[in-house]
């Protein structure tokens, strides 16, 4: 039983002024789902967490198709994204959307199929 696809992005070399900007993160949560043809079903949640090593920004929005989450680490210039959807979407389109806003220089991506194999009867 396949439930959907889970796209995981780890990006580094993000533009310092964007990776540290909570408004940028909120804008992504507000607009990326619709850009990909997905539907938000609740207002996004977002947090700023301050610690000795720096501030971390995090946000998540529930989708009719599952969820989108972002974690930004300004001190490291790193952005981490998870997009899980039971509906088809274009990871390349999501990548371009994020790159236009964060201007990262290196990315690592994975695409997981979520779900379980069918059970054999008997």
């Amino acid at each position, binding site marked *: 039983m396949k439930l959907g696809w889970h796209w995981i992005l780890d990006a580094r070399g993000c533009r310092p002024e964007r990776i540290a900007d909570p408004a940028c993160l909120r804008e992504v949560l507000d607009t990326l789902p619709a850009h990909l043809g997905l539907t938000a079903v609740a207002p996004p949640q977002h947090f700023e967490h301050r610690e000795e090593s720096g501030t971390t920004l*995090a*946000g998540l929005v529930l989708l009719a198709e*599952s969820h989108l989450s972002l*974690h930004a680490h300004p001190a490291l210039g*790193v952005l*981490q994204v*998870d997009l899980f959807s039971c509906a088809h979407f274009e990871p*390349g389109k999501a*990548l371009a959307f994020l790159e236009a806003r964060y201007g990262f220089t290196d990315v*690592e991506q994975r695409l997981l199929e979520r779900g379980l194999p069918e059970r054999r009867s008997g």
Partner: protein
Amino acid sequence: MSIPARRPAPAPRIWDRHQSTLRVTAGTPEGALEPARVCEVLREVGHRMAAAEGTPAGAVQLQTHHFQPQGLSVVVVLPGLRAVLHTWPEHGLATLDLAGADPVGLGQWVTELAVGLRMEPNLQPTG
């Protein structure tokens, strides 16, 4: 569906994520995927994650969305932590995604909290 092959480069390992899919097993107590039970499980996940990070328990707030005719999404987002659970009762399945800085603890919590469910071996630790 595929991803574009572009500039693969290892990113610093900051977070560990665990994605798992849970299947209701034979003999599972009825209502294993009932919304109240699902919320209870995720609230406990949130409390344990918060305790491990020194976050006040009061910060643990659930956000839920009920689908029609069935199905539920529940999320806990804390500073530096995330837990999301989606259920597909019509298939007897649920997915649980955890992200945090303690991959060993996360995996143990999943196992402990999945009482009544059998966790298939598809944990995906990624950082």
